[in-house]
């Protein structure tokens, strides 16, 4: 019984990181109705940035967080100008295809350079022991960092001028433009922020589990599931969705082989999409 409880708590910790990843996806959707199919590749980019920086410079894995975040932002702005700018306001089919195309290029380059070998980043942190169970320090620190970053994002969206402008653009782009908000620049900022979040969450996941160039697909699917649970375009819902998914994984792990987890999650994903197309934690549309 205690084992299940420990597994659920661990799931909760990992779930916060999933939630952070999904916030990046949902932010872009909320602001411009574009689903970013490079999300998985950006998560992997975060993982590899962690690996390269930590092993090349010999610094602590957690010190790579600021460069990953800043780099992710600029990569996201570039992504906006390359693949998304011309697609805003066109049928969703086109932006799906253009981001999918960029994803192919990124994954293709990644496989050509690193192959599909497994990479691992050593993190030595003391765990916290409760009775017979020890929670790995990396899991706790990753969860805390994810929660802090999510909080910062919330404050950014609600308390700063740029954040408020972003929410205005999400709410009604034309009206925002009428009151003098430079919408194009803000769309680029939104994609930059979304990609930065994906990169940072990839970096945090890299401290928890080993990864390959192709890991992104699985985490992208998890982000979609989380987004669907939390309601599209709703960052706070995404965090709650992440926690819900983590709890589910934690509750399921003791009973089912790990390789079945994805099947169960996918079944859940389709069921939720059909039963609650607006998401379980959804409030109203445009709740950014």
């Amino acid at each position: 019984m205690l084992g299940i409880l420990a597994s659920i708590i661990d799931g909760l910790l990992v779930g916060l990181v999933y939630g952070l990843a999904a916030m990046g996806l949902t932010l872009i959707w909320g602001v411009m109705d574009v689903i970013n199919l490079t999300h998985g590749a950006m998560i992997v980019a975060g993982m590899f940035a962690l690996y390269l920086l930590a092993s090349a410079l010999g610094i602590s894995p957690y010190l790579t967080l600021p460069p990953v975040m800043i780099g992710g932002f600029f990569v996201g702005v570039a992504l906006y100008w390359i693949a998304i700018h011309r697609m805003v306001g066109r049928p969703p089919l086109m932006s799906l295809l253009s981001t999918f195309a960029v994803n192919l290029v990124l994954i293709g380059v990644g496989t050509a350079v690193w192959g599909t070998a497994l990479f691992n980043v050593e993190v030595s942190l003391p765990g916290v022991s409760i009775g017979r169970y020890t929670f790995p320090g990396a899991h706790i620190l990753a969860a805390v960092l994810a929660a802090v970053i999510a909080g910062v994002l919330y404050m950014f969206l609600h308390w700063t001028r740029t954040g408020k402008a972003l929410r205005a653009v999400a709410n009604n782009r034309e009206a925002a433009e009428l009151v003098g908000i430079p919408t194009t620049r803000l769309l680029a900022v939104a994609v930059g922020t979304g990609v930065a979040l994906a990169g940072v969450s990839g970096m945090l996941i890299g401290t928890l589990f080993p990864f390959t160039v192709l890991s992104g697909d699985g985490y992208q699917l998890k982000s979609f599931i989380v987004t669907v649970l939390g309601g599209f375009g709703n960052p706070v819902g995404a965090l709650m969705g992440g926690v819900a998914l983590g709890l589910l994984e934690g509750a399921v792990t003791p009973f089912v082989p790990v390789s079945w987890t994805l099947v169960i999650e996918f079944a859940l994903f389709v069921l939720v999409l059909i039963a609650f197309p607006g998401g379980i934690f959804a409030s109203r549309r445009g709740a950014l």
Partner: protein
Amino acid sequence: MVRRPFFWIIALAIAVFAAAPVVGNDVQLRESLALACVYITLASNLNLMLGYAGYINFGSIVFFGLGGYICIWLVDSYGAPLALSLIAAGIGVSALSLVFGLGILRLRGPFFALSTIGIVEGVQAFVENFTPWGGSSGIYISPQVFAPLGGPARALWVIYFLLVAAMGLSLYLSYAIKTSKFGLGLIAIGQNEDAAAILGVPTPRYKALAYSASAFLPAITGGLYFFKGAFIQPSDAFDLTLSTEAIVICMLGGQGTVTGVALGAYLYEELRGYLLTTATFSNFQLVIAGALLLVIVLFFPSGLMGWVYSRFPRAKRVLE
């Protein structure tokens, strides 16, 4: 339909495909045309969803892989004849996708696209854990299964003609649907789903039917493809590259056109054959497919046929 010139253009294409390698007994040409057949079949059936109904299906490879698995499994475990296994694969996968389709096609636009990505991951994870299908190591079939077809060498020819037949049927299916009331309904859905529903198009049923119809021939082709190799494993059967290439082909040729997609598939196959022989590029196949797709989506969204139609407006009356 028989009186339209386009019907005979398709017949001519099939005849050329079937006859070209026979003349001169050219095995290398046969292999390259076989691959072109696979591409044309996958892309034309994807086009039913992508080009007509405007629904992007990232998981069309699931039909191909599941068809392959059902066929190989029947041949291997029950000694079923190839023809029966192929038909079982086609019907099985179509029925399964009808059930799936009725569920997920209530989702609209991007949500549907997301769930098709999930289907690939989910089905692949399922097959990898499914012991009757050999889990992640797959199924080998013994070369003896080629005996009823007259030995391995003749069997390859039989498989080739069946692949050509599947390709021809795909083209006729695309054409028949496009000129039917059903096709008109699908195209209306693609243009404006709400308006189509208001005008009485039964949108969920039409979408599910199109989804299911687009599964039948890819499943059979998958069966043939893996029967030919006498081996199937999850990473090959659900290789995302192939469904990606099908999307690239649809966009390259011009989504929603029958000719364009067939032409795009053939062109892509030739381009790929050329790139694969140069060592530098074989590692970058995905990169090139991606870059090509990006350029098409950004600058030429109506593809090859869009250009042909605008240059030669009369072509629109003949080439669907």
